[in-house]
């Protein structure tokens, strides 16, 4: 599917068509929105940045050479938008003033796999909540790396491209993030 999209996007880049970009939006919007929502924890900015991400991708589609996958390319745009968003004092003001923040208590009720016992179920939910809280304490870069690895399930190499970092740097950030999360969930050996 990914390969088909790459070919489609490359063809679209040369033809300037719209049809294949529809497929790109349909297939990748959920992941981009998920990454942005998990990073920002606010629905409105996440939705706006998701739209902006695809807008920029559409405008830059002729520059896409297929060197990275479409997902990696889109995530790179999303990461850049996220960085710009964080830097922008104006947007920060509006975020505080207008956006309705999501409940900081993570909705662990979305855990789809009920445990064998109520105790195990409660324990699993509590661990997920602990991860959610731990992720909030990570630095912005560690958080992005962590989310791309463990939620988006991207390879280290893809994360490096998406974030414009060396693979070794990604691994270092990921290691620190994992250490922090493990410390917070009380899971040290």
């Amino acid at each position, binding site marked *: 599917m990914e390969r088909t999209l790459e070919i489609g996007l490359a063809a679209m880049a040369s033809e300037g068509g719209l049809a294949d970009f529809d497929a790109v939006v349909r297939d990748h*919007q959920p992941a981009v929105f*998920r990454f942005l929502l998990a990073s920002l924890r606010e629905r409105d900015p996440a939705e706006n940045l*998701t739209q902006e991400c*695809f807008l920029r991708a559409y405008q830059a589609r002729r520059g896409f050479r297929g060197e990275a996958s479409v997902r990696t390319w889109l995530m790179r745009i999303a990461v850049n938008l996220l960085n710009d968003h964080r830097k922008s004092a104006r947007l920060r003001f509006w975020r505080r003033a207008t956006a309705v923040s999501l409940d900081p208590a993570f909705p662990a009720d979305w855990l789809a796999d009920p445990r064998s016992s109520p105790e195990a179920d409660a324990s699993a939910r509590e*661990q997920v909540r602990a991860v959610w809280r731990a992720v909030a304490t990570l630095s912005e870069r560690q958080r992005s790396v962590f989310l791309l690895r*463990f939620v988006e399930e991207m390879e280290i190499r893809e994360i490096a491209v998406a974030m414009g970092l060396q693979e070794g740097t990604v691994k270092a950030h*990921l290691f620190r993030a994992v250490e922090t999360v493990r410390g917070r969930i009380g899971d040290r*050996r």
Partner: protein
Amino acid sequence: MSGHLTAIEVSEWLAGTRAASAEQHVAECAGCTAELERVRQPLTQFSAVMRAWCAAEAPAPRPEAIPAAIHRQRRLAVLRVALATTAALLVAAPVYRQHLRSIEIALQDDALLEKVQAEIARPVPEPLQPLEKLVAWNAPAGQTGSGQ
């Protein structure tokens, strides 16, 4: 590798750094495999929860909105340029009018100065010019009153 994975090695493993000796040990050690799974489980559950939750929160994909948004952006850009031009004209117009007025005043001043210069340069003031003619009429040929 002789012993089990340390806590740091478990984190390194999850972060993607896996030494060949560690991989070999994990492949043979049920304890370390279980430990890795135990540590990985909250992360896997976290991912599952994120996916389910974000899927419920996500807006429906609207590919058709992209070209519309681009047109809207372009219209906004044109509008911004038009507004900036109008604002510049509004600011420039009074300044330009003031500039024209100062040129007009300068020209009037020049004309007045020329008139004054002309008056000063006259040998006989304008009101006495009829008398000058009379004097010129009585004077011998080649003489005028002004020369006397």
